[in-house]
């Protein structure tokens, strides 16, 4: 578990910012969690991106293997590749936390970065590639103390300038020791008055300039692209269409989308007025800005819509929308994909095991009272009556998927056991660094998908994550067992 104190310190920094709630990939959950291997060494990585770009991200690496001698971190910008990246910096061991390293990442341009975490030790060396999106997400407010300090210093400066002009036009021109003639004193007063007026104008102009800068900055804040969601009946089956309204996107002025786990989009519907209902669907890309796919038999109600896509730059993006189903949907399941899954049961609590069917249950094994910023919280144990570990089959190349949503929809994240990053993002960076692009810049993705390929016995599954803010959350975990995707839903309250 990554030391909670470090995360809390970061949480305090985050709280000091009047930050926006929407982020590029996911919603209201800016930190990147990554779990995997760098060469022979298992490592866990947390990247806390800055709220402004250019800015400095914090990175924490947990590398407990005793053979490890050195950990380095290096941000690589998508456009420049590793050839155009600065040399790696050594991450510093964290005091009183063996196996923990911390570092800073200078993210100087907006867009897609991969962070190369290098690990060296007696068993050799390895590099882990962690995708990070650098986008401006928040605006820092001027604190009361700093405001007062600046006002005091500013006032002293203004008064000082006027006094200096008075002295420059008056006393400074009088030979040492002589009194100031009345005419010169008058001239000095006139000069000081003019200086006061000019300084006042400058201060006024400076304030206008500052406001203009702040307005210009706000226009660079990342906001989800506008979309429109429509549900229609198509060939006897209800169909959902998500259309991106944004012109730049529609006209293809952003990098193309690439499949993640073989799917161009992962669309989640979560009902607003009921705890448990969730659908995980995989619509097709009809044109550059339109996703369309069949809907399962969902109950009526208002739904939040989240659609995760990955650009060929490795940039992950979530479309956010909502829809209302006036009546329950008829079953049109024949059109559904075998990876589409939905859940309409009640939520379980952290102390009650969630049924997955066939008498198999999934129990919450993380903290029973989760707190903000603490990692290692999303752990689950899988039980079946025989006591044997359940055989879990690959679901979209992964052992499992988790969806975390705060009740108000202001936090949403789609997780894997490897963390918050889409597998496609890592793949895009790997291809890019080998220079594996076609002349028009499109990546050759064919047959490159990796991940879990065979069923494995599983007793416990975990997702690296820390809740970003307090509140009531819903957590869904999806696993494929006996060729059927099973969903468990939990309701948890996260405290500060």
């Amino acid at each position, binding site marked *: 578990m990554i030391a909670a104190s470090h995360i809390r310190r970061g949480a305090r920094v985050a709280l000091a910012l009047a930050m926006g709630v929407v982020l590029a990939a996911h919603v209201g959950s800016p930190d990147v969690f990554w779990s995997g291997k760098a060469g022979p060494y298992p490592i866990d990585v947390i990247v806390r991106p800055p709220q402004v770009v250019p800015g400095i991200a914090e990175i924490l690496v947990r590398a407990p293997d005793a053979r490890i001698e050195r950990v380095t971190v290096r*941000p690589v910008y998508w456009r420049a590749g590793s050839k155009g990246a600065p040399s790696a910096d050594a991450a510093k061991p964290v005091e009183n936390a063996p196996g923990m390293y911390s570092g800073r990442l200078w993210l100087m341009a907006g867009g897609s970065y991969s962070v190369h975490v290098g690990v060296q030790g007696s068993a050799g060396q390895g590099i882990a590639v962690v995708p990070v999106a650098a986008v401006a997400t928040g605006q820092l407010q001027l604190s009361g103390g700093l405001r007062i300090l600046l006002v005091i210093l500013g006032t002293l*400066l203004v008064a000082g300038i006027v006094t*200096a002009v008075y002295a420059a036009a008056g006393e400074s021109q009088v030979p040492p020791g002589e009194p100031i003639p009345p005419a010169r004193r008058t001239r000095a007063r006139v000069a000081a008055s003019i200086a006061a007026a000019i300084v006042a104008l400058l201060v006024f102009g400076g304030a206008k300039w500052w406001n203009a800068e702040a307005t210009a900055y706000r226009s660079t804040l990342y906001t989800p692209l506008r979309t429109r969601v429509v549900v229609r009946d198509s060939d006897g089956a209800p169909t959902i269409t998500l259309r991106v309204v944004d012109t730049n996107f529609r006209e293809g002025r952003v990098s193309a989308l690439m499949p993640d786990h073989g799917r161009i989009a992962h669309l989640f519907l979560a009902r607003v007025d009921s705890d448990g209902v969730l659908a995980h669907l995989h619509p097709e890309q009809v044109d550059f800005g339109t996703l369309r796919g069949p809907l399962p038999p969902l109950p009526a109600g208002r739904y939040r819509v989240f659609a995760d896509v990955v650009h060929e730059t490795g940039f992950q993006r979530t479309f956010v929308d909502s829809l209302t189903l006036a009546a329950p949907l008829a079953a049109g399941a024949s059109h559904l994909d075998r990876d589409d899954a939905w859940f309409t049961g009640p939520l379980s609590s952290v102390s009650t095991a969630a049924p997955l069917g066939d008498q198999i249950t999934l129990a919450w094994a993380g903290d029973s009272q989760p707190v903000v910023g603490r990692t290692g919280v999303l752990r689950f144990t899988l039980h079946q009556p025989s006591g044997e570990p359940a055989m879990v089959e690959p679901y979209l190349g992964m052992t499992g998927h988790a969806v975390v949503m705060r009740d108000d929809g202001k936090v949403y994240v789609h997780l894997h056991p490897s963390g918050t990053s889409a597998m496609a993002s890592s793949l895009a960076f790997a291809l890019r660094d080998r220079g594996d692009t076609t002349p028009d810049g499109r990546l050759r993705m064919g047959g490159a998908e990796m991940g879990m390929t065979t069923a494995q016995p599983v007793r416990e599954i975990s997702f690296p994550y820390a809740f970003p803010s307090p509140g009531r959350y819903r957590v869904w975990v999806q696993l494929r067992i006996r060729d059927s995707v099973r969903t468990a839903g939990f309701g948890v309250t996260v405290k500060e």
Partner: protein
Amino acid sequence: MTTLAHPVGHPTGISHERAHSPVLDWAWHAYATVLAAAMVVVGLIWDISWHMSIGRDSFWTPAHLLIQAGGVVAGLSSGYLALRITFAGSPEARASGVSFWGFRAPLGAWVCVLGCGAMLTSAPFDDWWHNAYGLDVRIVSPPHILLALGMIGIVLGALLRTLALQNVADGAVRQRAATLFAIASGILITIVAIVLLDDSGREEMHAGDFYRTLAKVFPVVIVAVAVAGRGRWPATTAAAMYMLMLAGTSWVLMLFPATPKLGPIYQNITHYVPIDFPLLLIAPAFAVDLVWRRVRDRPAWVASLALGVAFLATLVIVQWLFADFAMSHGRNWFLHADNFPYMRVPAEEPYSFEFRPLEPGEAGLVAQLSLALLYAALASAVGRAWGRWMTRVLR
């Protein structure tokens, strides 16, 4: 024996022998402020090179520390002088300063204190700005302008301190003070040239716009120095100081290894990348020094016009020819024309060795130079007036 040019304590203005003056006791402070101003400006040149070569910025970079140290030297030495004069000075010493909120010190010391104050104020402001809007997204931002005003304050303070000494002292002290004044003026020209760096690239040097921009600004300082300096070639010395300071700092920096610590990196950099070779301002400054001797007693408009013509004509001839030379023979350590910062995209490199073509709708060379001449004459008039004011600074 050192004497004072201006009598002290003699309202009639009739000169009489002075054995000593407190003003001369404070000469150390004039040296301190010039040193502080030089530290600030060398630090600034270093900082720009740092941003071109290494990139990673913090309050604690050596270049920033040099700039801040310059501010501290100016602020502390001036503060100390003010406290000493106010609380421990003789009545004569107190009468030799100017009054400022009940304290007494030379005018230059107060301007240095204000400059130091502006620099100090800009530090927390700039830190907040970086956190709020991004790390150095723009060079020209309100906190950076405040910092620049602070630096200019320290340079102006140094100028005023050396002026007061030059104008009050006589004999050898005056000569030394005049040299010191020319050096301080060179530092001022350097800071002005740095402000204009973006508009004065080599590829601009055959465009009328370039001369129009320079004509608006440089004659103000160069003419003022020529008018106020008591040395033989004040403006020429100041311009030489500017060129030496800029080129010399660059030549030294280039000896030291540096690698980019920020991406994206498009240039292979192993040592500090210097800023552009200085403008050849020594030539127009020499012309201004020469012409001023001849038009000193002419009416203001005649003098200003003559100075403007001398400045612009010399600048155009010398800089135009130099630009041709630098384009073809500039890729060496001396002229360092291939000083590409790490973020410079290789595809853009050829443009650094081509003069910028006229943009659609942009006025032609003759029209631009005519306008430049008008600006040069007006700027010379302002410089002349400022210079004449400077000759009267006695405290």
